[in-house]
Structures are given as C-alpha cells and as structure tokens.
C-alpha cells in the first residue's frame, strides 16, 4: 500500500556484488518536499542506495517506486531525479553557462528560455556574471554551486546529493549547509542527502536514516534519533556517548558501573542484560558526598564551549562535558537524571566501529 504523499518507495531492496551483500532488505519511503539524510559510516551502503535511486546501479531484488510506479529498470536519463556527485563531475570542456545549460539543451528548451533559466540559476547560487568562466578557474565551493545549479535548472522532483560538501573546508561547509537548506525550502524540492557527518545530518534533515552494514538501523527526525537512539551503535555514531553494559533489575531501575540508578524505562523484564547509554553532557558533576557514584578526574581537555573530562569510577571511565572545570586528580560525585539514562536491548555485534572511521566509501 503506497500512500499518496510518498514520492519514492524502496521496498525490500537488496543489492549484491559477487555474492557479497551490500544492501539487505532496505525499506524506506520519502515524502514530497522532505529533506532525508542517509547517515552512516564508510561502506554502510548509503551511496549504493542513492545510486540505485539515481539509476546507476540496479537492485538485485526488491522494488523501487516513484510516485507509485515501478522505475527499477529505467536508465538514469529517463528518471525525474538529478544527482550532485562527490567531486561535482562538472564537464571540464564546457564553461559555467554551458555546464548549467547541458540538461536544458537535451530537453530541447528554446535558446531564449535557456538563457533566462541559466541566469536565474546563477543568481540563485550566487554566481552572477560567472557564465563565461571555465570551470577549472573556479574554487571548490564555486564548482559545488555550479553542480547544484546544473542539477536544479532541470527542476527535478528529487535532488540526490552524494556527500556534496565532503571536499570543502569547515567554514565553507557550514555556510553551504545553510544555503542548501534555504534552497530546498525555497524551491520545495525533495532532497535525499548522503553523509557520514552526523552533525551535518542533524542540522539539515527533516528525517535521518541511520545505516550500518547495508541495513537501516533507525529512521526518525533528528531530535528523536539523538534522544532516543534505537541501539548502542546509533547512540555511538550520533553524538558522543558513554555506553555500558548493564542489568535491568526491575522496571525503572537499572544497575551499571557498580550502582543502581532509577530510570524511566520499563518492560524489559527482571534481571535482563541491557545496553545503557548516557550522553556526556547529561552527567552532572556534584560534590563527592551527594553523587550517585564517585570518581577521580583523570584528564581535562578544553573544547571551546565546554571541558571534556574523563572520570574514573573504578568500574567505568565516564566521558563528561561541563562548562565548569574540575582539577585533575580531584574526587567528584556524579549524578544522572532518570530520563537521561537510555536503556536498549543489547546488540548482537560485539565491536562498535568508532565514529568517523576511514574515508568516504568511494574514496578509491
């Protein structure tokens, strides 16, 4: 059953290369005008998912619907989507104007109309007067804007973006994040965005899809993904976390790091092993006589807005963020508010890949 507002539906999509599964049973729908981000570490299958929608890869099994119609077998040039590639893939032998006009010329739009549309696009991406420049003369940020204009001029229903800001420096990346969001809202186009940068995903998206190992782990809006991670992997990948093995003693009472903590979760049963996640900013440092547990400050790092302290309780080393610095070696008490303790079913996977590990999956 496909709802009317679904623009794209992926149903049980699987992809294998030489018997290696790259995507396993991907189910996802994208609504009109939605900003959806596929987020995950290298090799998690997010780019492959995007390329299947773009038409550059074909799924081994499963159905891909666009406005309710099966487009799984259509070649890329017959799909109403456009793509922004990693490293932009501009046509080096054409100038900025001809790059942007490329799709319009194929669509046989009258020359006059092309001129008007391209000029409008140059204005939209803040490149007025750059039409005659060669694309080699542009900076990375400018090339990025040309790539965006080249796609948007065709008025696609969906824009697919494959780590488009990966090659830009931090400042430019932040600016472009805001600008992309502004364009998406102004034009009312659906964006499907691929990134491994969790902050980028949280900043820009309406919906975040967290992927790992070719599977979808969680789908939700940024706040719910951050506040209610589905499992320890999502918690670890999105934001910083303290992840501990614990024991659910009874409803609303959990034991970890050698102490019992009241919490708000229930329904796990009694004496069940669980994963416990606590964000570093949710641990309060209090006097060592009133804390739920006590520990010794091992190290202090200045991080700009806050201090990052590693506090050893003997059982666990907690990462704690606070604007107040504690002296190294001092004895402190730690306290956690019940609703900041996140309880999850333990993951089968023993090892958690660390965040930001490796390069982009297409770095070759």
């Amino acid at each position, binding site marked *: 059953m496909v709802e009317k507002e679904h623009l794209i539906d992926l149903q049980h999509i699987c992809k294998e290369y030489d018997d290696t599964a790259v995507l396993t049973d991907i189910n996802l729908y994208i609504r009109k005008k939605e900003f959806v981000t596929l987020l995950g570490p290298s090799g998690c299958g997010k780019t492959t998912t995007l390329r299947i929608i*773009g*038409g*550059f890869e074909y799924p081994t099994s499963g159905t891909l619907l666009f406005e309710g119609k099966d487009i799984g077998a259509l*070649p*890329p*040039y017959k799909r109403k*989507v*456009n*793509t922004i*590639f*990693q*490293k932009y*893939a*501009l*046509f*080096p*032998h054409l100038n900025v104007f001809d790059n942007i006009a*490329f*799709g319009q010329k*194929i*669509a046989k739009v009258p020359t006059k109309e092309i001129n008007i549309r391209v000029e409008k696009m140059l204005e939209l991406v803040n490149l007025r007067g750059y039409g005659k420049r060669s694309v080699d003369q542009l900076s990375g940020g400018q090339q990025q804007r040309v790539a965006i204009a*080249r*796609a948007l001029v*065709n008025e696609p229903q969906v824009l697919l973006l494959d780590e488009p800001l990966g090659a830009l420096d931090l400042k430019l990346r932040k600016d472009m994040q805001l600008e992309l969001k502004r364009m998406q809202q102004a034009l009312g186009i659906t964006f499907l965005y691929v990134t491994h940068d969790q902050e980028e995903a949280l900043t820009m998206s309406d919906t975040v899809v967290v992927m790992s190992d070719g599977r979808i782990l969680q789908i939700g809006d940024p706040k719910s993904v951050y506040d209610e991670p589905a499992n320890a992997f999502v918690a670890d990948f999105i934001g910083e976390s303290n992840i501990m093995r614990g024991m659910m003693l009874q409803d609303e009472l959990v034991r970890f790091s050698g102490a019992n903590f009241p919490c708000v979760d229930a329904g796990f049963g009694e004496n069940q092993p669980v994963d416990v996640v606590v964000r570093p900013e949710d641990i309060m440092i209090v006097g060592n006589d009133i804390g739920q547990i006590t520990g010794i400050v091992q190290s202090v790092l200045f991080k700009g807005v806050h201090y990052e302290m590693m506090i050893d309780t003997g059982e666990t080393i907690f990462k704690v963020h606070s604007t107040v610095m504690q002296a190294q070696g001092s004895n402190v008490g730690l306290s956690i508010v019940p609703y900041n303790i996140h309880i999850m079913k333990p993951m089968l996977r023993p090892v958690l890949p660390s965040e930001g590990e490796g390069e982009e999956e297409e770095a070759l």
Partner: protein
Amino acid sequence: MRKLVKRGYLALILLFLYIPIIVLILQSFNAGKSRAKWEGFSLQWYSELFKDQAIMKALYVTLSIAVIAAIAATVLGTLAAIGIHAMRKRPQAVMMTMTNLPMTMPDIVTGISLMILFTFSKIERGYITMLLAHITFNTPYVILSVLPKLKQMNKHTYEAALDLGASPSYALVHVILPEISPGVITGLLLAFTLSLDDFVISYFTTSPMVQNLSTLIYSKARIGIEPTLNALSALMFLALLVLLLIVNRRASNPAKAR
C-alpha cells in the same frame, strides 16, 4: 675538462646517428649522378622526382593508405579503449595483454602471419590487404594513447551526463569525446606516422602491382639507387621528422595539446 669530454662524447654519438641521413640529404642536392664526388648544387633530382609516374603512384598509395588506416584505426581504437576502460579488473588485464602483444611482436612475424591469413582465406593481395594490415597494426597504438585520458577523467562525468538526460550516445559525443580528444588526436598522428614508416608488413601484404614508397624504393634499390630516390628519402625524412615532433610535443605537454 670533464664537461668537455661529456659534450664531446654526446656530439660523437649524435654525429654517428645522423651522418648517414645528412649525407643522404646533401647527395639529393648533388648535380652529378655520381655519389662519389660533389658536382655542384642542383634541384634537378627533386624536379625529376615529381615527374616520375611510378614514384607519384606509390606516393599516392602511401598517403591514401596512411590517411584511411589512421582514421579507421582511430575510430576502432578509441571505441575499444572506452570499452576496455569500462571493464572489470581481470578482463581488463587480459585485454591489455592482448593489446600489447602485437606491438612487441616483430614486424616480420606480423607481416608473414597476415600474408598467410590472406592466402589462406583466398583474398588476393593488393591495396585492400595492405590497408587492412595497416589498420590492424595501428589499432593497439591508438588504444594505448586514448586509455590514459580515460583514466584521468572523473569517473562520474559520464554518469552526470546520463543524469542530466543524455542518452549514452549523446554522452559519448558531447562529453567523453571532448574530454579524451587530446589522446585521440595523438593516436591519430601516431597511426599516420607508423603507417608512412612501415616497410616490412607492407612488403608481405601487397602485390608487386600495388607499391607504396617503401616497397618501391626497395625494389628499385636492387637495380641501383637513382639520385631521385635520395630526394624522395630526404623528403620522407623531413615529413616524418615534423610529424614526430608534433606527436612528442603533444605527449610531453598535455596542457598545450588541448
């Protein structure tokens, strides 16, 4: 002192390399028929050269074969390179070995094997067989000059064209070919030069009725070298020199080659 020895050594080597061709060029301006003594400057052998029907016919054969073979090999080689580039690693390695092998094979082996093939398949040797032979030995060189350009291309450029609505053939003409054109032109010039240059393969794949310049000179030289051949050789040397300079310049300076 050391520097002087170095330079002297280099000069000596270059002298030995080029003295035969220098003598040849000088002889082509010799007024007398004797090769032993200088009888004054003259252009008469050049003017006689252009009056010689057999030589003019051979020149036509040489040039027309070089042009047609170079164009045909360029088309075949460019398309082959695009195909090889798109292959997966293992079949690509196999194709590259198959491409490199004919280039390392001695010309005489290529020539004889082609002759046997034509005889075996009962194709009468002549202009067409020589042309086919030239296309055959030229194609690998075109593939090798086009492939590096394809490797330099951003691999998403072709996909970007499709994404913007271009059919595969439109993308080939409007995106891929402009991108790799420096390699294609280098391949074309190389093929043309090699075709002009060839003697051994031509000798085995043509009939005595259809001669190109190299086979004609070879058969004439058996009777005795006429001074017109000096003039002809001098002109051929000059033409090949110019072509080689262009090819080398393109190969060493890819920025200017656009």
